[in-house]
């Protein structure tokens, strides 16, 4: 019987992200009412960050544990940001947003709004990291989901995974059973499908709580709840329930999803 829930992920599960702007209950708050609850999700992070939290804890998991994972962008690498470059607008999470590895040109690309002096001094180092570990980064979510799968076999805990992009999954829904479940729809797609007119390219200014409307927070909770309870019914995510995304308040080169 499940007693505890552990959550790892990004903005789709972050309990602190813009919390005061919303009144409705979130999927993780609904879970928190039922179980002992720990949520390590943080906006803007990737599995490279979240796995560090997971590694510290997974050995204690057993049949009383439910682990919910948002496996977001594999290329969200948590580089160190030395103290001297940090301020209110520049932190290690922002660094993940404002820097990325261009797999085609084999270059570290940097958003101009981040500290140019930091890039000048660290771009070479960041590029070297990516050149060395590029193949591992590309395949990291294959390893992450496989690791979670074996943890579910060995520890007999329940593991529910959402992918930000379903194409990142190797396992997909092929190994789903009563201990392990990968949601066959990507969170990114669920967010887009809420709009009747999402626009192309899709962009929104994060006006929904964890990128989801209240209805789909409820669906997300129900899907996890049903998995835990062994209920075969899988409620569908709601579509076409909003008109179109709010225009962003300002032009930004930041990533669409965080």
């Amino acid at each position, binding site marked *: 019987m499940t007693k505890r829930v552990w959550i790892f992920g990004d903005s789709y599960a972050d309990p602190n992200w813009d919390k005061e702007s919303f009144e409705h209950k979130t999927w993780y708050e609904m879970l928190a009412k039922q179980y002992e609850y720990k949520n390590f999700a943080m906006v803007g992070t990737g599995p*490279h960050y979240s*796995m*560090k939290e997971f*590694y510290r804890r997974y050995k204690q998991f057993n049949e009383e544990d439910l682990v919910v994972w948002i496996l977001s962008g594999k290329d969200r*690498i*948590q*580089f*160190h940001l030395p103290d001297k470059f940090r301020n209110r607008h520049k932190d290690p999470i922002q660094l993940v947003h404002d820097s990325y590895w261009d797999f085609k040109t084999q270059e570290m690309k940097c958003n101009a709004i981040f500290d140019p002096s930091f890039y000048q001094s660290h771009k*070479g*180092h960041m590029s*070297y*990291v990516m*050149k*060395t*570990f590029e*193949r*591992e980064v*590309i*395949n*990291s979510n*294959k*390893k*992450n*989901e*496989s*690791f979670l*799968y*074996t943890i579910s*076999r*060995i520890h007999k805990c329940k593991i529910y995974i959402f992918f930000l992009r379903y194409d990142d999954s*190797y*396992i997909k829904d*092929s*190994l789903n059973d009563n201990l392990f479940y990968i949601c066959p729809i990507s969170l990114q797609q669920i967010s887009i499908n809420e709009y009747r007119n999402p626009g192309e390219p899709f962009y929104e200014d994060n006006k929904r709580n964890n990128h989801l409307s209240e209805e789909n927070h409820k669906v997300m909770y129900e899907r996890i709840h049903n998995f835990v309870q062994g209920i075969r019914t899988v409620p569908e995510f709601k579509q076409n329930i909003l008109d179109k995304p709010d225009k962003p308040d300002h032009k930004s080169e930041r990533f669409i999803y965080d």
Partner: protein
Amino acid sequence: MIKRVTIHGDSFAEPQWENIHPTWYGRLKDRWPETVNYGKSGSGPMYSFKKFYENLFNYNYEDLIIFIMSGGSRINFNIKEAEDEMHQWNNKVMLDVTGDPYIGDDFQSKSKYDDWMKINKDRARFAVDIFHDEIVYGNWKYESLLYAASRIQKCKIFVWYLEMEESYIQTSLNDDHFYVHDEGLADAVENEYVEEERLHEDFSLSHDLHYKVNHLTEANHEVMYKQVTGFIDGREIPKFLKNVYRGTYNKDEFIYD
């Protein structure tokens, strides 16, 4: 029915050793002519998995994949200058940035290496630092991917570890498609010596580098062959032979990798 065999690993699988007696991989090739051996002395899983990632989606029920999982800390750095000594350079870089005493550092192009390190040491250290946790848990995640692949591709996967403590799964998930052998290869090498040799104060595994192939006696090559075929044929999987070899001392010989 198995038609193809793919071998990944380090010096325990490297086919370029002097051919002084039959080898486990040679015996496998006799049985399955479509055997490809990517084994490379001094390499680690990060090197081996490059090939595995490329081929993953092509594997099916006709494939047997054999992995020798060596040290997870054998990082495959981005070093173009190393040429044929890539793995020696890799291990030396790791030694120099972490102080890991486990890894060997003997190779020819030492001065070229020193020049490279003057420019890149700090970058290499930064890389190891940023991926520290992924390196520590690397083999546990690699073996998990192998396990998942055996479920999805329906291929058969046989795994030896250099050191058993590098496995998290151990033998807990062994079945018809996936098998982790429960004896580490480093122990197998040591244990094949007769006890009085092992207990000798000058005993070192490096002494017999040029007197054995892939660090093991012919008898244990045969055991390795039978371990793999036992898994495939559903027969008993034998243990490594112990106390069967009397060493040949030569203190100047080099390490095993």
